[in-house]
């Protein structure tokens, strides 16, 4: 019995395969690689990248791109740290403000892109510069967060105890929750389906009467929100805010999205794929750490080659499907 996978799931399956193979290779090659501790830190350490990459997925699905991710994460982190540490604001209020700001900032970029036809690449580049600089305006140095909410609630109360002394950190829970919500939005809301349509064929989507302008602005607002949320998760993870942090995070996010099977041209892809892509990036890093001899820059080379491999795979599949339709 041959198993025929619908072509649209092939890249997703490929990503899953890579994930499994990498993990298995690690378990075979090194002791303790398969331990629960490693698994937990894999998810916990990369949670903030994961949340950011989920937002980036929507933007890329719509046919756009967002280069401001890293800058917004850093801005959010230092904003929260400053509000909590220097202004006596309660963490929850600070987080709410930060999330609102992220959404508004994203919507602003989306409006510039839609209303004036400016290229997303340039607008989000400007956004990146702006957010990065504003982070330093708020506070020049990194700032630790010592509020009770963080120390007790996040670190202790909300971490789920697993076997032994291992806890599943709250950051991991945030990532899972965000993933579930993202899947819900992508596959069960009209907005999500409009995003796919917009990225698939903007002209047709307009002729079909879909609300293109609203969708574009909302998708960037969503990405801004996710970047801000990633900043919040970042503060959980680092227990501090840093305006100079997360440089190049947007590249990691885009790499995760591509490795996860989403076409950079838009219209095709899965949010779940991005989550797997994030884990793959984390696995590569972990493998290299375990190896001990290979230096961390091999991560960058490996990621670059993986992205290339997936893009060639995508090109191959779409060329093959075009040929099979023409032959009919």
């Amino acid at each position, binding site marked *: 019995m041959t198993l025929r996978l619908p*072509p*649209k799931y092939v890249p997703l399956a490929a990503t899953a395969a890579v994930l499994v193979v990498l993990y298995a290779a690690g378990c075979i090659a090194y002791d303790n690689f398969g331990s629960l501790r490693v698994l937990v830190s894999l998810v916990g350490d990369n949670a903030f990248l994961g949340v950011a990459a989920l937002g980036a997925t929507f933007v890329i699905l719509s046919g756009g791109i967002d280069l401001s991710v890293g800058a917004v994460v850093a801005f959010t982190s230092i904003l929260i740290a400053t509000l909590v540490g220097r202004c006596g604001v309660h963490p929850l209020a600070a987080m709410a403000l930060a999330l609102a700001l992220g959404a508004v900032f994203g919507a602003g970029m989306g409006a510039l892109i839609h209303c004036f036809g400016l290229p997303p690449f340039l607008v989000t580049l400007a956004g990146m510069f702006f957010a990065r600089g504003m982070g330093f305006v708020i506070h020049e140095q990194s700032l630790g967060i010592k509020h009770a909410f963080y120390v007790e609630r996040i670190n202790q109360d909300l971490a789920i105890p697993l076997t032994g002394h291992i806890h599943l950190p709250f950051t991991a829970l945030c990532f899972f929750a965000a993933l579930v919500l993202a899947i819900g939005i992508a596959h069960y*809301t*009209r907005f999500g*389906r409009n995003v796919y*349509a917009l990225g*698939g064929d903007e002209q047709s989507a307009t002729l079909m*009467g879909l609300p293109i302008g609203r969708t574009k602005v909302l998708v960037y607002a969503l990405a801004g929100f996710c970047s801000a949320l990633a900043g919040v998760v970042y503060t959980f993870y680092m227990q501090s805010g840093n305006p100079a942090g997360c440089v190049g995070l947007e590249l990691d996010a885009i790499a995760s999205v591509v490795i996860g099977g989403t076409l950079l041209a838009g219209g*095709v892809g899965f949010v779940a794929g991005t989550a797997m892509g994030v884990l793959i990036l984390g696995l590569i890093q972990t493998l290299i750490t375990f190896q001990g001899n290979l230096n961390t820059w091999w991560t960058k080379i490996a990621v670059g080659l993986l992205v290339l491999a997936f893009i060639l795979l995508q090109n191959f599949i779409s060329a093959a499907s075009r040929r099979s339709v023409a032959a009919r």
Partner: protein
Amino acid sequence: MGQEAPTERVLLEMRGISKGFPGVQALDAVDFTVRRGEVHALMGENGAGKSTLIKVLTGVYRRDAGRVVLDGRPIDPRSPKVAEALGLSTVYQEVNLIPHLSVAENICLGRQPTRFGLIRWRAIARRAVEALARVDLAIDVAQPLSSCSIAIQQMVAIARALDVSARLLILDEPTSSLDATEVEELFSVVRKLRGQGMGIVFITHFLDQMYEIADRVTVLRDGRLVGEYETAGLPRVRLVSLMIGKEYVEAEAAPKAPPPKAAGKPPFLEVRGIGRKGAIAPMDLAIAEGEVLGLAGLLGSGRTEVARLLFGIDRAETGEVRVGGRPVVLHSPRRAIREGFAFTPENRKVEGIIPNLSARENIVLALQANRGAWRALPRRRQLEIADRFIRALNIKTPGPEQTVGNLSGGNQQKVLLARWLATEPRLLILDEPTRGIDVGAKAEVEKLIQALRAEGLAILFISSELEEVVRTSQRVIVLRDRAKVGELAGREVDERTIMRTIAGHEHGD
């Protein structure tokens, strides 16, 4: 003209519709009526106004004047979405759906059934199956649209239109990419919908199909209404002449016979059985040096497709090409250019001129490309060449540095011609070279073509103006519905014979 329809049967009535754009009056007081339970064809050559009329109807454009009444109520749709809500649905030639999404989703996109804001996928699937049943289609609705053939995709588009409760369905060139069986399937669906009382507007270039499916036909020409007719009582030849604008030409004084071609010369270009699925059925063609071969046929008959195959833009699937007796494979424009071919495309805006570059740069481009990047033509030489052709072709431009995009259409065409003439080609393929050129310039171009022919150039002359084809060519190949239907030479080359060949001699004189 057709008799007045009893008003309760009239579904759509457009009266006195006018629409102008800067420099051109696209529609001038056009009337268009569609009845319930009728397939109404809309026909006309390029620039006749068909697509403008439809765009006015569906809210893409706003009309300048006139009235539109749908089901007794006057309407004025401002956007395609509003038109759709009123019950007007269009299915375009390029199936405007989202290829990567599923069939079911494409049918329901924008109107998905939801509960608490969340989409109900099973309800979508059910609704899609029902919608497809109305077009006699039962396929897996979960599969991506792109995995279906174009014919099926069109059915899905029609199903979507029906799902939106369309009362008037507009089919814009639906059969261009379909084979005979698929066309039959489409027609049976159209007949079924007609039986249910829908009004269907059918825009096509294919005469045979039009006669098969349409009850009435409205002919437009140059933005004006020529008339509305019942297809049953309209002879083909009359239809063709209405579209082209030529009344029956009795044997008038024979036009100046072009000099007979030198006997015994081997053809410069000899093509056997060249064809490509969806473009042109396998056909033969030969052109000798110093000869003008005309390619005549209605819009959509495959003329440009032949040109593209000969110039290497599209790959031929069948056939053999010989240049000067040597077999060649024309796999790219560069290859064709190296054989001495030149091509002025019909769609000069998109495929011809480089709009933001100057006239000089446009003119020397092909010549320079042939020489390569390193053997650059010195600026003085370029100006010489540009000035020479500006004078020779009488290109109206303030100077050679004028941006080509700012020139009038006619002058842009001349720049394009200049580009190719500068390469001193051996075969010149001209696709609608005089479209959009004023009468004076047209005469110049025709004189030029004869001069080039006298110098020994082989020329393939494609035009929808029969008069021009007859005046310029010594032999004419006639195309209809993507196939060659005749080849005329010598005395046979006159407008009447060409029209009869296009029409197919069916209804007699």
